[in-house]
């Protein structure tokens, strides 16, 4: 190695790289340029940490901790747009409403929904579910009927199980006609907690 090469191997001193600041600036500039197709942040809730993702059209995804963050972001990249950015402040309105809901001060979400991750029969089922009010429950069969297939209770259950926007699209309010609280994509304990919170625990 020559003296010149030795000197080149000692790069110039520089300020340390601030990854967090760089991400924040990028999110701002991308939003201004209309390039932040999907923005996500987190919320600490009584049901654990939630991932909250929004698009310019509305709330597109809420994920419980039991789903790996990597998988959730990959799903958004493939199902909505690969322009997925960490931009927690973009999710503020959704996070505020969720906080109000968990605090018991908000009974009806007033958030635009982006249904991009919902397809086929599930669209009708989840839109019907979104109309079931706070503190009430309905059955899988009723949701199937609302979506146009009264006998497709099981298919409605499957659609609800993979609801991409739990809590806000209140799939926890849908229970079996035969009694009990039924299953829940986020785990039965969470479903019980939410029904309890709403005072809607079915007898």
């Amino acid at each position, binding site marked *: 190695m020559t003296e010149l090469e030795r*000197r080149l191997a000692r790069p110039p001193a520089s300020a340390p790289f601030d990854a967090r600041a760089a991400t924040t600036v990028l999110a701002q500039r991308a939003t201004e340029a209309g390039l932040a197709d999907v923005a996500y942040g987190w919320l600490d809730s009584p049901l654990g940490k939630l991932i909250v993702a929004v698009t310019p059209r509305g709330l597109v995804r809420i994920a419980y901790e039991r789903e790996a963050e990597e998988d959730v972001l990959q799903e958004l990249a493939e199902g909505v747009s690969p322009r997925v950015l960490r931009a927690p402040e973009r999710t503020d309105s959704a996070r505020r409403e969720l906080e109000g809901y968990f605090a018991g001060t908000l009974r009806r979400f007033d958030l635009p929904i982006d249904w991009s991750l919902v397809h086929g029969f599930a669209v009708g089922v989840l839109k019907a579910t979104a109309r079931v009010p706070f503190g009430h429950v309905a059955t899988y069969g009723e949701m199937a009927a609302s979506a146009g297939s009264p006998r497709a209770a099981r298919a409605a259950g499957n659609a609800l199980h993979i609801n991409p926007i739990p809590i806000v699209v209140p799939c926890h309010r849908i229970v079996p006609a035969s009694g009990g609280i039924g299953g829940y994509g986020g785990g039965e304990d969470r479903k019980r907690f939410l029904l309890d919170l709403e005072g809607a625990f079915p007898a």
Partner: protein
Amino acid sequence: MRLPPFQSLVDVHAAELHRFLVASVGPTEAEDCLQETLLSALRAYPRLRDASHLRAWLYTIAQHKATDAVRRNVRHRAEDLDGINPGHLSEPPHEAADEELWTRVRALPAKQRAAVIHRFVFDLAYKEIGLRSGTTEEAARQNVATGLRRLRMEVDR
């Protein structure tokens, strides 16, 4: 084709790109250059056909942004070079000398500049340099050699 969420590219590559840009354009400009690189990449990202060379793709964009920045500052840089006189600077002499060397590295033609930085700052083999700059191992070797020859002439002058 499965493109990963863009944020994961930022998380994995931004620090390294920043280091590359500090060497390419200097610490003051590196941050802006990085943002321009990431924003350009984000803009083009959904149209990308091949997800297997994302790092090389990012480096290519960074190299272009660095070249733009160097061009913008060409007059500036010439003044810097004229003004350098180690004897009159307060820093220890070897630091001043290195500052001069890096100013000259930044003034190299784009491909030579990137190749020299990949080779010496990142200690990469020629094959890897070729991959990162979207060219061949042979071209990378050539760019490093030409860049070095030029630097040696200027520094020893």
